[in-house]
């Protein structure tokens, strides 16, 4: 499709020299002055068009050529192709004065449209002063063009336009237009009678004309009807949403008696409404008629698709009208309810359910209508059956985003349905992740937060399970050949999917609602079953978005002030537990690597502990187990470092009264043992594979723990004094830089000295919670500055007694 020839053409267009361009323009200028339009002219203009649009920077064309092009553009006798080309060239080239173009409004709609497209491209503020008469005269020809140009109409103009729109919308002709090729040689006068219009299913039309009426050819006002309906929604949004109704009595419009009006259910008093209100009324009727027409079974596929689009548009327009004038709500609801009843359960119309749900959300309270069934259908059934429709998924998620706060408050099963909603993400991770990053906080509820965390972590499993479900539905069990064609791995997983013994597992992962428990024990088995699907592209993409979601989850959980202290604590508790067990079995390699990535876990671990310091004591067994094993250093060094830091920081009586001396001692002993083990100086020792930072953090933590249980101080001092030997040993010298070894030695020194003055050490190493406040440091009467002065004084006096 895209060939090297295209690329070289673009290159040529960009690299054309200025003089060559000027010469080319000169040639075109001469060509344009000849009477007839030759193929050469068109060809040259096409090339010029390419030249001006191929670059980011505008090309300046000679002004005489530009004037000539503008003249051509304005003349009605110019062939369309030239108009299109000149319009495009002027749009793209360096803008000269376009005001000359605006000076007179041409009568010819095609010309005007092309002129307008140039003007619109280059002028940001339209300062048209259009007289009332002018608007009326030109409106019929230039509807779409006009509504783009006139970005701010005064009320008189709005009324004028509204009246015309009502005419076109509601009172268009009811007979087919004169056909160009009516009959043939043998046709008599009778056959040239205009045939009646039909509905999309072939039945003759009985009511006013709409976009769903078919005819061999259309009259002018029927075209206007179609254009009007196409733009009526943006018109209403722009000019009808200021909340004020026009109550001027002299603006009551009269309908032209020449326009045919059909029998319909409107009250006769509608003729006396001001133009804006009348337009609303007519638009409402039009929408009702379209909804009714959409029930017919269309003969052509294009028309079926159009019916769906019309339903969506009509419900949206009715929503806007009801928003402006609540009295319409009572008329709208029966229609919408009937529509919902018709579409409910029909998968082909799932996208039309969303505007209906929006309508219910906006207006069901006013009308005191029960909307529970609608939302139940929306959240409980829709995602499960149609998660793999990308357009529906996108619109569904946008709907949730737009209405998140209302849904949280008023629709009970919104937050409960997160397993279903996440199916959209599992089915289309790359496309929807940006939306889900914004949506996820609204799905977090205190009672289901833990389950949500588990669900997020299992998202790749969900993607695999959904894939299997789909394939299983497509292929019959007996059709082994089709099954086997998908590859041995997938076939094996499919077999597992079909087995009754694993049914429960799959039912759990594919559940539509939360509330059946945080997770199930046998999930590990599911991971093993699905391991073969780990390389499937959809699963891999899904695994890539999980860390992003986890970030969002933890940010929300740690920042939002949970009103229920206990539930907040529970969330923090379980989240940390999950993080600790980094042997979480996941079927995607990618996920494993990222989960142990430092930045991710570390950020959240610290935040969680800061929020709930008692966590350390709660989780003391697991943390102790984790911290005691040096193997963890080698596989998850960064995480280990932070765990040690957290222990030093938060394991104290001031944070949790349950922190006993025995607990501190047991932590101390484990960490001491680890430090000994990794800093053993042996002949055959290999260079350390961990960073020097781990050593310093371990040393500092041990010192901190010692200040809290002062019997441990001698042991720490002994341990620290061995650090110098370690740092100066041959393997370490080769591995660490000079500054790092110096740092280790210096830190060991500082800690030993500090621990000689236990009370001071306590202030420095383990300040109470107020230690973060500035007063602690600035107030000369507070303890820390005093302590520091005492230390410096003592150290100066005792400097001679420092060990070498």
């Amino acid at each position, binding site marked *: 499709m895209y060939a090297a020839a295209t690329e070289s053409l673009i290159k040529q267009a960009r690299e054309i020299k200025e003089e060559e361009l000027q010469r080319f323009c000169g040639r075109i200028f001469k060509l344009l002055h000849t009477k007839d339009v030759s193929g050469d002219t068109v060809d040259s203009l096409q090339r010029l068009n390419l030249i001006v649009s191929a670059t980011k920077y505008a090309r300046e064309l000679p002004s005489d050529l530009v004037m000539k092009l503008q003249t051509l553009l304005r003349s009605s006798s110019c062939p369309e192709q030239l108009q299109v080309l000149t319009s495009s060239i002027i749009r793209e080239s360096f803008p000269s004065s376009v005001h000359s173009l605006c000076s007179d409004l041409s009568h010819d709609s095609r010309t005007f449209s092309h002129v307008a497209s140039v003007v619109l491209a280059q002028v940001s503020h339209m300062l048209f002063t259009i007289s009332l008469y002018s608007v009326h005269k030109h409106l019929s020809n230039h509807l779409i063009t006009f509504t783009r140009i006139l970005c701010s109409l005064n009320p008189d103009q709005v009324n004028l336009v509204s009246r015309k729109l009502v005419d076109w919308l509601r009172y268009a002709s009811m007979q087919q237009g004169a056909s160009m090729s009516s009959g043939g040689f043998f046709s008599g006068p009778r056959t040239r009678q205009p045939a009646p219009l039909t509905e999309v299913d072939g039945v003759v039309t009985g009511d006013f004309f709409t976009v*769903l009426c078919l005819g061999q050819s259309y009259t002018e006002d029927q075209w206007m009807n179609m254009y009007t309906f196409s733009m009526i929604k943006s018109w209403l949004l722009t000019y009808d949403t200021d909340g004020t109704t026009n109550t001027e009595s002299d603006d009551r419009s009269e309908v032209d008696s020449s326009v045919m009006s059909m029998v319909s259910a409107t009250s006769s008093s509608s003729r006396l409404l001001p133009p804006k209100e009348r337009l609303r009324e007519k638009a409402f009727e039009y929408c009702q008629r379209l909804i009714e027409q959409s029930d017919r079974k269309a003969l052509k596929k294009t028309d079926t698709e159009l019916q769906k689009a019309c339903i969506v548009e009509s419900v949206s327009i009715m929503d806007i009208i009801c928003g402006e004038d609540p009295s319409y709500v009572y008329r709208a609801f029966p229609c919408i309810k009937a529509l919902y009843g018709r579409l409910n359960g029909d998968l082909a119309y799932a996208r039309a359910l969303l505007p209906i749900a929006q309508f219910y959300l906006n207006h069901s309270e006013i009308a005191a209508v029960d909307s529970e069934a609608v939302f139940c259908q929306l959240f409980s059934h829709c995602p499960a059956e149609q998660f793999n429709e990308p357009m529906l998924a996108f619109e569904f998620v946008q709907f949730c985003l737009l209405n998140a706060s209302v849904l949280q408050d008023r629709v009970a099963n919104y937050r409960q349905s997160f397993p279903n909603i996440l199916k959209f993400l599992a089915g289309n991770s790359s496309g929807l992740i940006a939306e889900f990053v914004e949506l996820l906080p609204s799905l977090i509820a205190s009672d289901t937060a833990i389950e949500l965390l588990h669900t997020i972590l299992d998202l790749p499993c969900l993607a695999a399970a959904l894939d299997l479900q789909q394939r299983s539905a497509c292929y019959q069990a007996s059709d082994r050949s089709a099954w086997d064609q998908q590859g041995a791995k997938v076939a094996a997983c499919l077999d597992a999917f079909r087995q009754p013994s694993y049914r429960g597992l799959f039912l759990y992962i594919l559940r539509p609602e939360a509330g059946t428990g945080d997770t199930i024990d046998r999930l590990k088995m599911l991971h093993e079953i699905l391991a073969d699907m780990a390389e499937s592209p959809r699963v891999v993409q899904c695994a890539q978005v999980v860390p992003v979601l986890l970030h969002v989850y933890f940010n929300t959980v740690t920042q939002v002030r949970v009103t229920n202290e206990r539930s907040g604590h529970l969330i923090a508790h379980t989240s940390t537990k999950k993080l600790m067990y980094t042997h979480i079995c996941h079927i995607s390699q990618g996920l494993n690597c990222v989960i142990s990535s430092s930045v991710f876990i570390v950020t959240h671990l610290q935040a969680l502990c800061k929020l709930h310091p008692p966590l350390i004591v709660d989780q003391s067994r697991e943390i102790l187990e984790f911290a005691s094993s040096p193997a963890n250093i080698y596989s998850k060094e960064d995480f280990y470092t932070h765990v040690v830091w957290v222990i030093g920081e938060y394991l104290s009586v001031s944070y949790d009264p349950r922190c006993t001396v025995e607990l501190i001692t047991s932590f101390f002993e484990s960490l001491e043992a680890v430090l000994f083990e990794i800093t053993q100086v042996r002949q055959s020792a290999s260079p350390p594979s961990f960073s020097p930072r781990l050593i310093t953090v371990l040393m500092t933590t041990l010192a901190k723990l010692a200040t809290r249980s002062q019997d441990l101080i001698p042991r720490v001092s002994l341990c620290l004094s061995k650090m110098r030997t370690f740092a100066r040993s041959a393997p370490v010298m080769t591995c660490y830089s000079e500054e790092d070894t110096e740092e280790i030695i210096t830190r060991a020194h500082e800690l030993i000295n500090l621990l000689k003055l236990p009370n001071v050490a306590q202030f420095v190493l383990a300040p109470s919670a107020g230690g973060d406040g500035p007063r602690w440091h600035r107030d000369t009467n507070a303890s820390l500055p005093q302590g520091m002065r005492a230390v410096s004084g003592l150290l100066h006096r005792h400097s001679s007694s420092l060990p070498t």
Partner: protein
Amino acid sequence: MVSCFLIHTVCPVSALSAAESRILYARVFGPETGDADFTPEQRRLMQKEKLHVVARQARSAVALSREASGGLCVEAVLGEEAAALGEADSGMFSLGNAELFPHRSVVLWLGVQSLAFSLVCRPHENLLLAEGVLRNIARHCLEELRLLGPGAEMLLKSDRVDALLHRLLPHGQLLFLNHRFAFALDKEIASYVSK
């Protein structure tokens, strides 16, 4: 209302880096809402840059979607436009609050082999209708410009796309066309192309 329509590459282009997309046709609709502080030339440059950002994002969306579905791309040739369109993948994504276009604009894309057709829609647009319009425009482009063949007709005959958009998407307005309206417009387009 539609803010802009783009035709751009989704295959690797030798002169560009891997993630970049070459825009073959771009049409921006509607009054500019940019600042009055910039000169017209600066505004034009900004607009071109914005279009490139959209094209890049659409390209990556197409690539990710094709990767996920794992489908094999069967190369269709001239004359098989309907088949190519049937095989095409489509999707949409939001531009979020980026200051590219009116906020929360949605990009609708349709990937046909090595090219993609993208439509940037304002928020609250009827996306179901937009999808239909995009497919219709793509079908016309494939047929009138012979995109399934080799050759660089796309670039020189871009006035055909202009004429097409003038009828099917006048000033960015999506139209509710039943098959008879569509047929009438198709005839007009065919007569333009044959000149």
